[in-house]
């Protein structure tokens, strides 16, 4: 079976969705069958293992932010449970 989830880098703790997933869909993550609880759109991220608030998220093998809430394996990882860790070293000025 072709999994709809792609691992971009071996160090990553999230997978990227390449085909739409319906809620309740069963797929395989690292050899285990996992039920995806919520619908996932293409390009969105799914937890590769159980994640806790504060965990760094790795994608492309690089930190892209950290969890603000816990997530189970197969859960959607996005704005509701994850935030940026990026702090610009200079002032951002809005352009009017």
């Amino acid at each position, binding site marked *: 079976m072709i999994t709809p989830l792609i691992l971009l880098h071996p160090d990553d703790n999230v997978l990227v969705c390449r085909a739409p997933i319906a809620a309740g869909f069963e797929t395989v993550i690292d050899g285990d069958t996992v039920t995806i609880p919520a619908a996932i759109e293409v390009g969105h991220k799914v937890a590769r293992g159980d994640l806790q608030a504060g965990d760094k998220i790795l994608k492309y093998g690089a930190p892209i932010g950290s969890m603000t809430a816990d997530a189970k394996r197969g859960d959607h990882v996005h704005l509701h449970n994850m935030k940026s860790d*990026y702090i610009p070293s200079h002032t951002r000025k809005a352009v009017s």
Partner: protein
Amino acid sequence: MLNTPAITAYLRPDGRKGIRNVIAVAYLVECAHHVARGIVNRFTDYEQLASATIGDAPEVHLIGFPGCYPNAYAFKMMQALTTHPNVGGVLLISLGCESFNREQLKTTIEASGRPVETLVIQNSGGTASTIQKGVEAVKRMQAIAAQTPRVDMDISELIIGTICGGSDGTSGITANPAVGRAFDALGAAGAACIFEETGELVGCEKIMADRAVTPELGAALEASVEKAERYYTIMGFGSFAPGNAEGGLTTQEEKSMGAYSKSGSAPICGILKPGDQPPTGGLYLLDVVPDGEPRFGFPNISDNAEIVELIACGAHITLFTTGRGSVVGSAISPVIKICANPETFRKLAEDMDIDAGRIMEGRATLDEVGSEITDLVLKVAAGARTKSEALGHQEFILTYKAFEPIGPACLPLKRA
């Protein structure tokens, strides 16, 4: 080990090696563009272009600078482009009253050992007469360029650039990381690989700095991204848009990583500015954002300007990733198009060299597409045409910019 076809290069008198043997017809102000194009058109043979490999007759490409006022960046770019290893001869077309220093450019080209002639329209009898004289001049240069010695070329002598354009949600999942794998393979074989567009790297400057071969270079990499963010903010464009979140991107650093993944995973050994040549093999960042206060508008008005800057750094081939679908090529150096989105590939197959969208549909892995890109780079270096070359694409844009020279920390591995 890479599966390498024999690359039989054109050996230039300055010792550099080219994979194409192009006669460049260069207008030195927009007012000379039509005449220059008129000369090039006489040599454009679409049937020959459509053949699978390059022919023996040197092809004729149109390049130029439209501005009437002088600009040090544009002059440096024209010097680098007219002495590019893929160029075997140059015809300069001047109106006559523009401020471009045509004598100094001619001296630079002569010093590189290439045939060069200048035609000044105001002294050559006008449009038709200059076109006629130009056609004869190009024929003379083709005859000289056809005698260029052919020598073996190693992968370690190649310079490869990469750019993304018309990106969508698939770019960062398929084509960009696949190019990263090709960059890793080509860089490991000793090639110089160049990535660019610091404006799209906002948020991953720390991650990038950690890959620098020295801490000083790391600081310079961070500074180049800070410069880009400030510049684009003044232009009125931030980087992270609401549409990015709908596409599944959660953070600024995640979005930037998608573009940054084209760079692969090798250590970063230097920063170049447009027209600088990589002194060794390895991975380089090309800093395309002007220095100082914004003066001439956007850093690059379209993808084509960035491709020209990569070529000015010596790029023999440019890897262009696209999700929405771009059809462009370039004068002087071939462009390989890597399509990220499988739907786009089906719509624009005639323009796409590589179908990286197969990764989206589970029909190929990132590693497989990465190997396919590496193999195609070597085939194109050995004379196979890219899709855009076969379709006759020779886009070229050069406009005004201002740069300071690169700082002392930028090329730590430069040979003494």
